[in-house]
């Protein structure tokens, strides 16, 4: 993302991205300097290199990457830009690490309005700044109309993990507690409410948020007693716990009544025939914590604004079938399976 020093003002109100903005010429330089550098502005980008060098502290580094293809691009509680920052920060943070740097790669469809791109880039910049991370390198490509759904963003994140922390999905042990940081399904339901054909109004907004500060207070309270952390995005809580059950070779037993779900989310799920535990979250985490430290970690979560609705929802149990099961509000039992195929609204 080098800006070659050429400056001319972009028409940010009415202009649109065209193929020249991806061609490597002046137009691309304008786009990068006039829009992205403005939004992300930091010392690394200011040097206008095709890469950025940074100092590395001692310890173990964490790296992750993720693509963002959300539709619609704008939704209550955020947009694809803030999501691309929060999501990657969260993937770094789930290792217990402190996130430091991000890269951002944009695939933009010809005709995309500069005004929308600016809103998205600005919200990426502000999401990164308030999280204390820097977007230090990036790329833009422009594709022909019809070849992208407006805009795709990929972000890569780098962070540093403190000595002694080694969280991993194969580390859950029988007897560990399952904690969630708040109500489930808010993001997925918000996105669905804005999709074509499903136009219903809801007061729920996306929960999109950077979770590394919450992770930091949890690590301070629980240390290596925190065995696994995951953010339950696509596939929801059900997918996350099934993954952990397989990797740790045990089962989970959840208590339905203790799983936090907002009434509007529950109602939407009933309307569309979905289950809140399959619906995506973008600002929630699941932690598997040693039983003796679970109360302390839960208390630390509840004291943090992003964990005020945190709850202990169940425990790891020995089960060679690796089932995630749930005690229903009725005293019955059922399996919490992976989502089958994709999540489709149902009539029956």
């Amino acid at each position: 993302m080098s800006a070659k020093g050429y400056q001319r003002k972009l028409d940010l109100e009415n202009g649109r991205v065209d193929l020249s903005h991806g061609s490597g010429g002046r137009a691309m330089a304008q786009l990068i300097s006039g829009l992205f550098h403005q939004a992300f502005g930091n010392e690394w980008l200011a040097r206008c290199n095709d890469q950025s060098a940074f100092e590395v502290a001692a310890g173990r580094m964490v790296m992750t990457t993720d693509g963002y293809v959300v539709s619609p691009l704008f939704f209550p509680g955020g947009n694809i830009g803030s999501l691309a920052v929060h999501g990657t920060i969260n993937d770094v943070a789930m290792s217990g690490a402190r996130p430091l740097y991000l890269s951002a790669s944009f695939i933009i469809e010809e005709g995309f309005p500069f005004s929308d791109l600016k809103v998205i880039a600005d919200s990426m910049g502000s999401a990164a700044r308030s999280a204390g991370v820097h977007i230090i390198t990036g790329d833009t490509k422009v594709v022909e109309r019809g070849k992208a759904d407006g805009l795709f963003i990929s972000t890569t994140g780098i962070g540093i993990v403190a000595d002694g922390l080694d969280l991993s999905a194969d580390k859950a042990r029988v007897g560990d507690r399952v904690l969630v940081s708040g109500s489930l399904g808010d993001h997925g339901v918000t996105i669905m409410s804005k999709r074509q054909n499903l136009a219903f109004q809801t007061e729920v907004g996306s929960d999109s948020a950077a979770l590394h500060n919450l992770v930091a207070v949890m690590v301070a309270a629980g240390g290596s007693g925190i065995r696994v952390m995951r953010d339950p995005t696509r596939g929801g809580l059900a997918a996350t716990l099934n993954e952990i059950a397989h990797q740790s070779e045990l089962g989970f037993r959840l208590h339905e009544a203790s799983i936090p779900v907002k009434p509007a989310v529950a109602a939407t799920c009933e309307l569309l025939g979905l289950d809140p535990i399959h619906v995506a979250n973008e600002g929630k985490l699941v932690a598997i914590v040693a039983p003796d430290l679970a109360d302390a970690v839960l208390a630390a979560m509840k004291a943090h604004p992003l964990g005020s609705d945190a709850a202990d929802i169940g425990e790891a149990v020995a089960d060679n079938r690796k089932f995630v099961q749930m005690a229903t509000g009725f005293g019955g039992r059922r399996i919490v399976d992976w989502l089958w195929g994709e999540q489709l609204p149902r009539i029956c």
Partner: protein
Amino acid sequence: MKFADEFRNKAIAQGIARAIGGEVSSQRAYRFMEFCGGHTHAISRYGLEDLLPANVRMIHGPGCPVCVLPASRIDMAIRLVDRPEVTLCVYGDLMRAPGSQGQSLLRAKALGADIRMVYSTLDAIRLAEQAPSREVVFFAIGFETTTPPTAVMIRIAEKKRLKGLSVFCNHVLTPSAMHSILENPKIRDTGGVPIDGFIGPAHVSTIIGTQPYEPLAEQFGKPIVIAGFEPLDVLQAILMLVRQVNEDRNEVENQYSRVVTREGNRRAKDEVSQIFELRAQFEWRGLGLVPNSGLKLKPAYAQFDAETRFAIHDLRVADNPACECCAILRGAKRAVDCKLFGTVCTPETPIGSCMVSSEGACAAYWTYGRVRDEPLRRTS
């Protein structure tokens, strides 16, 4: 949610379960079929079988419109949407329903077919208005509950002169299927367990009322209790059936009186009878050809009938011979008795009707019931 949460009360449920336990005779078994997938779902979702005495057994019937749609109809729809001018509108449930030879609408879409998921027939109208040059075909499925919205769509299309909109009609009728289950000699002679009573559909009955079940109860001597889909509704219906069996009564009773009447919804029935008429027979996955069990558009509405308009003809596709759905649907076998269950037939790759939608007997067992296969070791 008002009118839902009150009917999910655990303490009352346990009280009613104890009442059932107290009233059943230990001398006999009680086998009740819940016809409707909605009840299957409630029973599985809330783990109601854990609350029932061992001699009360629920048989999960064929009442899910996605499950009973035969592969041939999916094949016909795929053939239809192969035409470049066709946009096919479907309810999301249908996307994964299996056609023959591994085909599905999801796969057809991936191969380029113009298939749109809709939530309502109103969405199909909108699409037809927005794209007047397209042939918009609505893939209509469902029981009596889902038929009136299709009828309203056709009436609106006629009024708005939407020339591009048509319906691929697969609507089916509940009482005919119950009749077929009770009288089919194949079902009687091949080890099907006798059914002692039915829990009748909730939402279907809001439309047709309780009256159409009366001849069934009388002719076959079986009690039928129309029940709501909440767990307390189901438990109360089971108690009502137990009482009827104990007292040797074979009546149609209405547990779901907050919505269902004897007459049903006259306005909805009128909408349907203006536009649809009976087919001589219709194929059900798992049950085969069932007489008088399906609807088609009346000749006066032929212009809206996709089968006429595109001259697509009935196909017959054999069900997988190893599939035990037919026996499972009538209670002769359970999901785990089928060789295909959990091996080649899973929710991701369903073979038989019972695995197709989350409401089928096998899918419900897969999702909710497998947990009972062996006791859980507790070491915590």
